[in-house]
């Protein structure tokens, strides 16, 4: 005797319910996607501040005052400020300026350049800023800090507000 033939059954109302619910939810999702409001594309300069801190062995001018000529930092452009540093001791010193955040959050994308007498002593990211300046006995130098933000990192920098301080570490310089 031949085995009974297997017949395929489909619960049409159940399929209609489930597909209907899925289609309805998908339509709601599509409506949400369609309802998206485009974000603004305007530019907001960062607010940057740079102040030099005093040191026991160095004469720093100006101290505690704003160094940057302008405080609006636009990605792709730079702001700069200079500080006069003199060795107050009778022996040559290595002065190591260090940047630290005094207020707000300085973006890691910031680029810093340190110039002395037109020569670049450091150029790179703010996190790796560890230059050293040699100062002869009673000698002084003008150090210029240039801060910029690459255009590629505009989103990280725009709209931020931060104050940076320059702290000085000194050590006796070898002859």
């Amino acid at each position, binding site marked *: 005797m031949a085995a009974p033939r297997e017949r395929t059954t*489909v619960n049409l109302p159940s399929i209609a319910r489930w597909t209907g619910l899925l289609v309805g939810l998908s339509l*709601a999702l599509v409506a949400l996607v369609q309802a998206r409001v485009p974000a603004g594309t305007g530019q*907001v300069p960062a607010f940057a501040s740079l102040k030099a801190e005093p040191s026991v062995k160095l004469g720093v001018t100006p101290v505690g005052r704003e160094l940057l000529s302008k405080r609006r930092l636009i990605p792709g452009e730079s702001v700069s400020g200079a500080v006069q540093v003199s060795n107050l001791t009778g022996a040559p010193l290595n002065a190591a300026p260090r940047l630290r955040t005094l207020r707000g959050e300085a973006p890691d994308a910031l680029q810093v350049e340190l110039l002395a007498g037109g020569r670049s002593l450091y150029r790179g990211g703010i996190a790796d800023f560890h230059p050293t300046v040699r100062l002869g006995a009673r000698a002084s130098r003008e150090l210029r800090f240039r801060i910029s933000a690459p255009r590629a990192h505009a989103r990280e920098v725009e709209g931020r507000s931060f104050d940076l301080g320059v702290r000085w570490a000194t050590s006796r310089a070898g002859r």
Partner: protein
Amino acid sequence: MSGGPNVLIAGAHTSSRSARLFARACLTFALWVVLGFGVGLLAIVTLPSVLGYQSLTVVSGSMVPTLGVGSVVIDEVISPADARPGDIVTFKDPLRPRQLTHRLQKVRAEGDTYYMVTQGDANDVPERWTVPRDGHIGKVVAHLPKLGYVRAALSSRHARLGALGAVLLLGALMLVDVWRPRRPAQ
């Protein structure tokens, strides 16, 4: 939901019965599309707060035609440092105890304060206000026209209970559909 009889695809039933069943399935499908759409919209309006967003209803025409009266806007809560000119933002009215949703014209950071200038698309006069650096504002990421009227209709306690009941009933029907034993094939 009665859950109609199982239909034999590979059978030789009468065409009128099949047509009736098919029409009924189409009707069920349409009804559930509407129900699913409604539940989806309800979720869009109510769930944002769980995900760190907020949804608000537009009650004035100051942002017409971008945001019409009765629209529901969904706001992402952001730091003022992340706001950009051109964004539509929600903030506390500097003059009255209410919230405004207007377009950001200018942002200026200075120290720990952000100075904002906003203006409604349909307004002539901008408003100036400040927000601390660690403060928060809303940034409109989506708007659903007219949905605010539905929300207003659901604002009464009875209407909310009714909507909740409808959602629970929907869930119960789906569970019944999943767990109900199938009839044997004819």
